[in-house]
């Protein structure tokens, strides 16, 4: 069992990294093309068909750049910071189920890298470590822009980590577990099941909405919104990209980085985008669950593929949403950002927990 | 999750303090800058809590699943804390106004510290002791640094915080070791285990008598430390017929843990080898806060100390008694001798508080019923007289902290005969002159020591009391027989006068009708 288990795990890791890294590469291109489209430009279209090889060219270019570490910088930490960022970005995906089970090598394989019982805690813990990468990068450069960027980002990240942690709690209360695959399983029943308990004056909703799947987004609309906003902040994406804030901080924490070390920050930002999209999908949008897919009469193997495809499509839609938001909204001012985090998101997510608690009591 | 109404009813004093604290915070947040309201609400909360504690003196019960033990013991201490708390609040008003620092946070912090103290006194579990100590200490750290713009105040807060955090570390490590050897943090459970653990410990008494728990380590743990494995030895130590080596290991760890717990608590009461923070902290902190620290915090630490000594260890512990006796003797000698050379009255009172910690510890070291009662009486008496003394110091203190030297009190009797008389009363009581409260406190404690065959401790106590009479009476002498210009700036606040009167009344009352 052990060897097979290890081999299977390695295979799953390869699949996940292949997906995430290729995804990140394509995303960089997609982002540039979409932004060009929004701004009525062409965007990169020369390297390969539709510019598809642009990212590969970028990586090669970054690899052959000179590695510049400023004399004033702390060399060890300067080297270490981007490594933290990318390690975190690449390992977070371990507990997210990207499909149900699949028949392979003569056994039913769960499509999740590490089936641990504390999945959500693991993700929160890694998010916490991720802060170090940016903070240390800002500090080690010994550059005023970098330091400001690093400080701002650590303040921002920890502020929004709170709302992120709090908005998940509603989901945990509903599903009663920290395992992400069980959270998904919990969302597969039709909504009509849980609607039986509705008071009589709301019973008319059952035929109207009962066919919907019981995705958590329907039970936790506030939690969903706060979680999505917090994810935007956690990935440093516009409108929350103050740590980078090109006009004021000339790049922020990675001002003093060149070559692939800069590339690692860049890569981890996009990998984080994919991971948090996958997390939103898993927690609130039913993960790999596609309503009615079971009733199509597909073979188990094909059904598994359909489920993986569903997951993929959901994540893609979210990622595109990320990109469109970036090129549509202006950036916050820093005081607005902190006010939103502490005075709106935090009370909102605590209120959400109390409301969920009351509703659950009434429900059962 | 079964908690009952009785849990809340039993802990009514505690919950009153909690509720008052929260209400004051809310009031302060809703309408900033109205400290008068906070003053009245906090005072009312303390008085209500104290009355509830008086009402609860008769009931004996455990609550929250055996975590807290409510009864005459805990309620007696709750009364002491509420008394000192309300007196501190009374003293503080005019003092803080004079320094332009009259803010609600002072009352909030006093309330929270008192909460921690009540928790400590009613604890029936090491975890609760820890929780109470932290709640109390964190509030006191901030209280010590309450005058944010004063260097002395900041210095005192920082010193207190750093050393206090260190002591907390000792305490927590000790709790961990006790838990490891006894298998529980609950007093009753440990109490049942303690005799077996103590009996099988192979250490000679002399090691422990050397005074430092570190020496326990040097006595050498058996090689089987790792192999023995804690849980096993715990189980076996609970039975009686067991291999001596492993039981000895559990016993050693238990003793080591107790030693560390005692170190942590000895720090909080400022007993001799762990007293270094006291003078600086007492000197720098705002005087009402100092008074509160010196009385209520010390009382709370003794509340926890007595709980641990009597409820947890029981009276079977010769080694622990000897350790405590050594600490007590050292505190008495050190505090009293150094106090002689102090010219600053706050520092003098700080050293005297070290000495008094020694007197009280000798009651605990005696480890008999008289000792326990004596310590409880002493705590109450000490709280009244010391708080009264600090109240008078707070009246005389001026902005630049100049008027703190004992010589500055010269001629006080001519200018303010009533205040001088009150201070003289407190000083006589601190020195242990009959028929005041201080005398009977010492009498009970030393009586307990004699009964426990610790006559040497009682002799040390009496001798050092004689030394202490010198510096206490010097203040009286300076006040009455030296010419000078001891001036009180501005008016003396009504509330402070009330506080002093209450203290003075109690000192006489406790003394005459013990």
């Amino acid at each position, binding site marked *: 069992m052990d060897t097979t288990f290890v081999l299977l*795990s390695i295979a799953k890791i390869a699949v996940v990294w292949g997906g995430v890294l290729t995804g990140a590469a394509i995303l960089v291109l997609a982002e540039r093309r979409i932004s060009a489209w929004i701004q009525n430009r062409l965007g990169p279209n020369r390297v390969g068909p539709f510019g598809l090889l642009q990212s590969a060219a970028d990586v090669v270019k*970054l*690899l*052959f750049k*000179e*590695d*510049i570490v*400023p*004399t*004033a*910088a702390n060399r060890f930490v300067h*080297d270490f910071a*981007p*490594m933290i960022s*990318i*390690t975190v970005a*690449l*390992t977070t995906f*371990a507990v997210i189920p990207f499909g149900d089970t699949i028949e392979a090598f003569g056994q039913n394989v769960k499509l999740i*890298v*590490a089936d641990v019982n504390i999945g959500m*805690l693991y993700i929160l813990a890694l998010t916490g470590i991720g802060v170090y990468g940016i903070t240390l990068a800002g500090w080690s450069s*010994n*550059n*005023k*822009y970098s330091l400001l960027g690093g*400080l701002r980002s*650590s*303040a921002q990240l*920890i*502020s929004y*980590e*709170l709302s992120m*942690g*709090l908005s998940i*709690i509603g989901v*945990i*209360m509903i599903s*009663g*577990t920290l395992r992400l695959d069980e959270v998904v399983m919990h969302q597969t029943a039709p909504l009509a099941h849980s609607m039986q308990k509705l008071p009589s004056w709301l019973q008319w909703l059952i035929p109207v909405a009962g066919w919907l799947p019981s995705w958590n987004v329907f039970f936790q609309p506030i939690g969903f919104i706060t979680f999505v906003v917090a994810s935007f902040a956690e990935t440093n994406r516009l409108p929350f990209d103050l740590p980078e804030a090109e006009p004021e901080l000339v790049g922020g924490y990675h*001002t*003093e980085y060149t070559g*692939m*070390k800069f590339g690692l920050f860049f890569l981890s930002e996009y990998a984080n985008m994919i991971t948090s999209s996958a997390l939103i999908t898993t927690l609130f949008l039913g993960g790999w669950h596609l309503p009615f897919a079971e009733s199509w009469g597909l073979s188990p193997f094909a059904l598994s593929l359909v489920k993986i495809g569903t997951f993929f499509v959901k994540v893609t839609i979210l990622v595109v949403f990320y990109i469109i938001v970036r090129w549509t909204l202006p950036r916050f001012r820093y005081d607005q950002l*902190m*006010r939103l985090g502490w005075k709106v998101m*935090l009370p909102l997510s*605590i209120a959400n*927990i*109390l409301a969920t*608690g*009351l509703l*659950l*009591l009434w429900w059962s | *999750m079964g908690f009952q109404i009785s849990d809340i009813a039993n802990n009514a004093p505690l919950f009153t303090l909690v509720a008052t604290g*929260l209400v004051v*915070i*809310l009031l302060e*947040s809703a309408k*900033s800058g109205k400290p008068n309201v906070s003053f009245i609400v906090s005072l009312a909360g303390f008085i209500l809590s104290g009355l509830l504690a008086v009402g609860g003196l008769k009931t004996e019960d455990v609550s929250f699943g055996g975590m807290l033990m409510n009864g005459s013991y805990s309620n007696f201490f709750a009364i002491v804390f509420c008394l000192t708390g309300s007196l501190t609040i009374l003293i503080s008003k005019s003092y803080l106004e004079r320094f332009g620092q009259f803010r609600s946070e002072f009352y909030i912090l006093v309330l929270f510290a008192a909460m921690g103290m009540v928790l400590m006194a009613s604890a029936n579990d090491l975890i609760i002791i820890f929780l109470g100590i932290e709640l109390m200490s964190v509030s006191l750290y901030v209280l010590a640094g309450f005058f944010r713009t004063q260097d002395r105040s900041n210095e005192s807060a920082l010193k207190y915080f750093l050393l206090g955090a260190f002591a907390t570390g000792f305490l927590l490590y000790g709790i961990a070791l006790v838990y490891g050897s006894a298998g529980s943090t609950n007093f009753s459970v440990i109490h049942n285990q303690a005799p077996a653990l103590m009996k099988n410990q192979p250490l000679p008494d002399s090691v422990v008598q050397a005074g430092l728990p570190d020496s326990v380590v040097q006595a050498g743990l058996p090689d089987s430390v790792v192999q023995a494995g804690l849980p096993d030895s715990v189980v076996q130590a609970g039975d009686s017929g067991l291999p001596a080596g492993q039981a000895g290991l559990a016993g050693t760890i238990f003793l080591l843990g107790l030693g560390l717990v005692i170190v942590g608590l000895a720090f909080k009461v400022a007993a001799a080898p762990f007293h270094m923070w006291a003078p600086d902290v007492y000197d720098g902190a705002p005087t009402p806060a100092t008074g509160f620290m010196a009385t209520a915090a010390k009382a709370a630490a003794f509340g926890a100390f007595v709980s641990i000594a009597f409820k947890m260890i029981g009276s079977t512990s010769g080694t622990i008694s000897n350790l405590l006796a050594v600490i007590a003797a050292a505190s008495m000698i050190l505090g009293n001798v150094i106090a002689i050379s102090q010219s600053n009255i706050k520092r003098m009172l700080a050293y005297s508080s070290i000495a008094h910690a020694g007197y009280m510890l000798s009651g605990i070291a005696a480890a008999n019923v008289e000792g326990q009662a004596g310590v409880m009486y002493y705590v109450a008496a000490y709280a009244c007289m010391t708080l009264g003394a600090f109240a008078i110091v707070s009246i005389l203190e001026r902005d630049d902290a100049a008027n703190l030297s004992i010589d500055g009190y010269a001629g006080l009797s001519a200018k303010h005969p009533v205040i001088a008389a009150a201070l003289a009363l407190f000083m006589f009581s601190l020195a242990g002159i009959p028929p005041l409260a201080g005398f009977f406190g010492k009498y009970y404690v030393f009586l307990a020591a004699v009964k426990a065959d610790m006559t040497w401790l009682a002799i040390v106590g009496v001798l050092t009391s004689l030394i202490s009479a010198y510096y206490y009476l010097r203040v009286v002498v300076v006040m009455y027989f030296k010419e000078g210009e001891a001036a009180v700036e501005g008016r003396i606040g009504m509330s402070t006068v009330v506080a002093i009167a209450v203290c003075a009344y109690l000192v006489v009352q406790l003394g005459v009708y013990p």
Partner: protein
Amino acid sequence: MIESYIPIFIMIVGAMGFAVVMGKMNEFVGPKRPSEEKLSTYESGMEPVRSARERFSVKFYMVAMLFIVFDIEVVFLYPWAVSYKLLGTPGFITMFVFIAVLLVGYFYVWRKGALEWD
């Protein structure tokens, strides 16, 4: 139980390897033509003035402290949330009291202006 963490371990080791290789690659394959100008700290073309590691606003510390307070609350909420359906009404009341006490502090901090940033 513990073996479900093996894949995570493999993944972390792999990711670290990837990170180290990629992060150090430039040192080996990139050109090395350092100059004093190039290695000086970037400050929009100006000569760098003083070190960057000086004192910064106390507000960052405030945020960090508040974060710890609330993050510990979150940590307490997790086990409670997992077993919420077992705990029922007493569980809700207990946690409600806990959160209410924290909200009093939150209200205080808000009114005292610790959350203002300007």
